[in-house]
């Protein structure tokens, strides 16, 4: 195998791993019991998932400019994801003007914040 082949293989492996984390994040959104827990799955899994996809793509980049651009995309998405997550979490915990305690998995039926 040439160096180019190794690089493509590594790149595809990283992108595949990234996609797996996106999938795990989506499974988390479906399985977790309440809104705030679901946000965990989205923020953490997508942070790592996109990070791995970006890392895989930098191996295929033509020049340093593209590498910087890809890293910048990752950072901006992280920033947006964290801010959006805070806004959702904040409005969920302050729905009645008071921070409401979250409900554990033992009693998810009590949790009406996500409209279930």
């Amino acid at each position, binding site marked *: 195998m040439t160096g180019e082949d190794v690089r493509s293989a590594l790149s595809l492996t990283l992108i595949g791993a990234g996609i797996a984390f996106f999938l795990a994040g989506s499974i988390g959104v479906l399985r977790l019991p309440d809104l705030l827990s679901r946000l965990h799955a989205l923020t953490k899994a997508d*942070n790592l998932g996109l990070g791995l996809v970006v890392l895989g793509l930098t191996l295929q980049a033509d020049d340093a400019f593209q590498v*910087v651009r890809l890293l910048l995309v990752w950072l901006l998405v992280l920033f947006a994801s*964290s801010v959006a997550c805070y806004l959702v*979490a904040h409005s969920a915990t302050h729905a009645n003007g008071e921070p409401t305690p979250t409900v554990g998995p033992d009693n998810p039926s009590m949790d009406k914040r996500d409209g279930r």
Partner: protein
Amino acid sequence: MRRQRAALSVRSSALGALLALLWFVLTGGAVSSWIVGVPTIAAALVLARQIERLTSPLRLDPAGVLGFVTYFLRESVRGGIDVAGRVSARRLRVAPGLVRYRWRLPADGPARALFALSASLLPGTLVAAVGEHEVLIHALDAKGPVPAELAELEQRVAGLFALRLSAPGATDA
């Protein structure tokens, strides 16, 4: 007053230059992209002036920056694997709950903002509300060592900005 205004306009121009550079890198320098870019940067500057209070100048510690970046990357990997493992187990391994954490970072400056932004991306913690003295954290596993992990993040943020924190242990969960 005049000095404050001068400092603010210096800061605005610096921010404008930084945003323009960001836009240039993101769009690859396509001339037509500035049709969107210029109004966006102008709007960002107006917003920044509305929310910005004049604070002490930023001080970054190079070793602290490196330490923070390493920590953030390592914890991102741990966070992703952690949450993926918890949700793909046959029985969900979660015990969600809210944890109050008392700030040790100073209220002025960007340290608290960086802490809040990072905490939501790092394993098991999510910022639900930011208060004057406390921050309300939602933990995916409230029985885990949440305060200790938050204390470490706080320490790393303090290191990045070359700040000193009071001794740990003053935190209450």
